[in-house]
């Protein structure tokens, strides 16, 4: 099991390394939010330009993690179409190890992308010491695993590479906008505050922001508990989908659908 997970992670990281240019390209979106949207909106917000950018920095970090993790999850859809995974399917590896390995690999890729956004913190007016940095990195890791689990749980249900991005945009963007990444939840309309309670991204953003700015919207234990439950549930859901292939005829069919 552990070896299977490890093998999937090594495979995905080797492939990721082939496309390491994506790490640089992946900077474009968060920096755009931070320095263009942030500067523009900040100037008109009550917080003022500099303070606003400082405020949304953790949110932008979450954006970067969220999109990198889900993009990594799309490889599942591609994997079904390439042959290498057919060879993996006839190796003595539990399907659950493939699902969990995919979540781990996606989280690591997202975390790497997040680390690359981090050096831009001073430019956004964010200052932090060692203790804050350690807390932030912990929160980033937790967020990366959560987002990767979200991506894998979704991607495991799709066999078409064209449908998945559409669905993920219809789900990811609302989750991001509701999360309070770009505005304080405390002053948002009540319905948005209520909705944010059902949005895992909100808890992840809050943990990261709290570790930098010292102020949390949700109680920290609640956030940790919610994210742990979300990760467990989604990982379980993904494992179930991957396992379904074990004993029905769709498994390893020539087009390699885990699900038909």
């Amino acid at each position, binding site marked *: 099991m552990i070896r299977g997970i490890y093998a999937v992670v090594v495979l995905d990281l080797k492939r990721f390394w*082939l496309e390491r240019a994506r790490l640089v390209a992946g900077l474009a979106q968060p920096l755009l939010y931070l320095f263009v949207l942030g500067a523009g909106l900040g100037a008109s917000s009550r917080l003022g330009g500099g303070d606003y950018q400082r405020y949304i920095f953790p949110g932008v970090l979450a954006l970067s993690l969220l999109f990198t993790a889900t993009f990594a999850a799309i490889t599942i859809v591609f994997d079904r179409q390439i042959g290498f995974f057919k*060879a993996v399917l006839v190796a003595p590896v539990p399907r659950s190890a493939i699902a969990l390995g995919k979540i781990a690999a996606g989280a690591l890729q997202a975390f790497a992308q997040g680390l690359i956004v981090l050096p831009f913190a001073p430019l956004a007016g964010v200052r932090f010491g060692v203790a804050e940095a350690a807390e932030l990195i912990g929160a980033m890791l937790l967020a990366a695993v959560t987002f990767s689990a979200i991506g894998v749980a979704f991607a495991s249900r799709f066999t078409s590479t064209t449908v998945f991005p559409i669905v993920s945009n219809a789900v990811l963007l609302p989750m991001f906008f509701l999360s309070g990444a770009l505005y304080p939840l405390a002053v948002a309309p009540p319905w948005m505050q209520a909705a944010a309670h059902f949005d895992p991204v909100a808890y992840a953003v809050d943990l990261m922001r709290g570790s930098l700015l010292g102020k949390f919207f949700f109680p920290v234990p609640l956030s940790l508990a919610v994210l742990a439950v979300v990760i467990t549930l989604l990982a379980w859901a993904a494992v179930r989908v991957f396992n379904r292939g*074990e004993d029905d005829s769709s498994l390893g069919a*020539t087009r390699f659908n885990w699900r038909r």
Partner: protein
Amino acid sequence: MEVRGLVKRYGAVEALRGIDLTVQPGERFALLGPNGAGKTTLFSILATLRAPTAGTARVMGRDVTMERDAVRREMGIVFQEPAIEQRLSGRDNLLLMGLFYGLKTSAARRRAAEILGQLGLAEAADRPAKTLSGGQRRKLELARALVSDPRILFLDEATLGLDVDARRGFWAQVRTLAAAGRTVFFTTHYMEEAEVADRIALIDAGRIVALDTPRALKARLGGGVIHLQTDDDAQARVWLRSRGLAPEPGGTEVMLVQADPAAVLPELLRALPVKVHRVVVNEPSLEDVFLKLTGRGLEGDAPPPAGGRTGAGERGAA
């Protein structure tokens, strides 16, 4: 390997209708049949990729549905379609496969180097797989299947699309592996490849229609086969039948199985009322055997057009 009463249904379609066969350890066993005969289905069940509707299959004594992982550890598979990550090098592909089979990184690395050397791929090992030649890529597939040092090797149309040289190189490797005591179970479209098998099962419409050594299969036809190309094959057949001979129905040429072709042929050519362009006499081929047993060739899709034969003549187009 033991297969008993294997049935596979897809909805109303019965792809396998009760397959029984036993493959001995160390045997080279070929599965031959036209497209749609059930080869791929049987292959996928044995490879643990599909569950049978009924019946059992055991590989190295392990049940392919109940003891999947045990079966998977015993076998290596070369699929018809590529199953390597084309962007990674051959060495990385083998290393990763080693990890998937539970080897430690250092052991997987050693194993990869060992197999690459064994198959003569060492020089090409560090280039992305997609830059290799077709033959090298197929060898890399074989290398991938060998990472776990399997006792049984499954090859599904493993040399499809390769040129003759590359095919020969591939089979030379397989022969070496078989000589080392591995069981080799394979499907192929190339008759000369099937000839190297110890035994051959001919499969048609989900059933095994014959199972024997290549020699014994061909001996079933007895003697030799006369192939005639004439101005009017239909008329030639009618004439042959009127003389008490039994030409095979249909086909792009007239085919006649005879105990002693050399003795019959001179008289035949003198008396035939149609113009003969070309005569070929040969030992019966496996293709001929299949045609005789099922009334159609190996290359076509089932079922054959009325009175027609999809066979050797269309080999290039199949």
